[in-house]
């Protein structure tokens, strides 16, 4: 496989392996499958999981970090720790953990055992949205952390079955990255069981492309 093919495959996988933002809802309904992909320039990720209960999901997570030159593949477990339902809002607190292997690509280094733990939280009404995710990872050859937060507003309130649109602003902090803190305006669309996000990060001149499908 040449470099272009490999890059294309990784990009495709990456869009599914999204990081914090698109994973804000990492647990589905009992028996439900979810496939999600993220690509924000710094990294591409793919996450496919199955929810045996409405509080748990388990699946494959793979991430290729372009900014720090490593690749992680492992099994990820997500747990809905707490959910607050009110007549006009819902808030969630999640715990996430993954174990697997990682390798720095391009220098022939050995594969090492790796993993990460993280928390995610979100709150939304039909008009407003806010989310946070932080995670710390140990790749054997590298340790680090990153976090991100989002706020969003729906320009119109759609009915069930309509195309829904959200305007969002994401701030991401990766202390070890070349540009540690970035701000990304993005637009989120969802229709039926599909969600698509498109954004642009001016500081790094990078595009964001995330999608999620549930079935």
């Amino acid at each position, binding site marked *: 496989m040449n470099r272009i093919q490999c890059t294309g495959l990784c990009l495709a996988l990456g869009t599914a392996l999204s990081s914090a933002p698109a994973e804000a809802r990492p647990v589905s309904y009992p028996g439900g499958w979810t496939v999600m992909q993220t690509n924000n320039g710094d990294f591409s990720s793919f996450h496919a999981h199955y929810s045996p209960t409405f509080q748990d999901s388990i699946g494959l997570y793979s991430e290729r970090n372009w900014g720090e030159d490593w690749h992680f593949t492992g099994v990820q477990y997500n747990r809905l720790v707490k959910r607050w*339902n*009110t007549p*006009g809002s819902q808030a969630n607190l999640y715990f996430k953990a993954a174990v697997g292997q990682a390798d720095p690509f391009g220098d022939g280094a050995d594969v090492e055992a790796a993993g990460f733990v993280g928390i995610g939280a979100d709150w939304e009404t039909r008009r407003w949205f806010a989310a946070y995710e932080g995670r710390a990872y140990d790749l054997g050859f590298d340790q680090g952390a990153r976090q991100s937060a989002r706020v969003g507003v729906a320009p119109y309130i759609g009915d*069930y079955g309509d195309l829904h649109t959200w305007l969002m602003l994401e701030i991401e902090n990766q202390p070890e990255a070349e540009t540690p803190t970035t701000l990304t305006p993005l637009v989120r669309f969802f229709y039926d069981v599909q969600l698509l996000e498109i954004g642009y990060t001016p500081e790094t001149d990078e595009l964001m492309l995330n999608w999620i499908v549930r079935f």
Partner: protein
Amino acid sequence: MKLMLTALAATTLTLAASVVSAQQPVAVEAATTAQTMVTAKVNGMVCDFCARAVTKVFGKEDAVENVHVDLDKGEIHVTLKSGADITDERVETLVKKSGYDLVTIERESL
């Protein structure tokens, strides 16, 4: 003449009884084919994407014919198959599995 009136009355009563008797199975059949719509008011249902779980979870039930979600009112409308029923406890379990909290349940014959 008295005998004739008695015979006429008896005949009328017999016919009436047979009519009532013939109508009874129809009434029973109508009762068993009646449809019910269950309306569950829930808390937390603010997102269309997440509310897809409602359709999936309720749709797996044998008794359920159709599911409609009203985000404005925070209601799940479940149309049951003819003659089918679903308990309040089961509705509450399904709402919980969908990720929401049940507030009230109402039933309406269609």
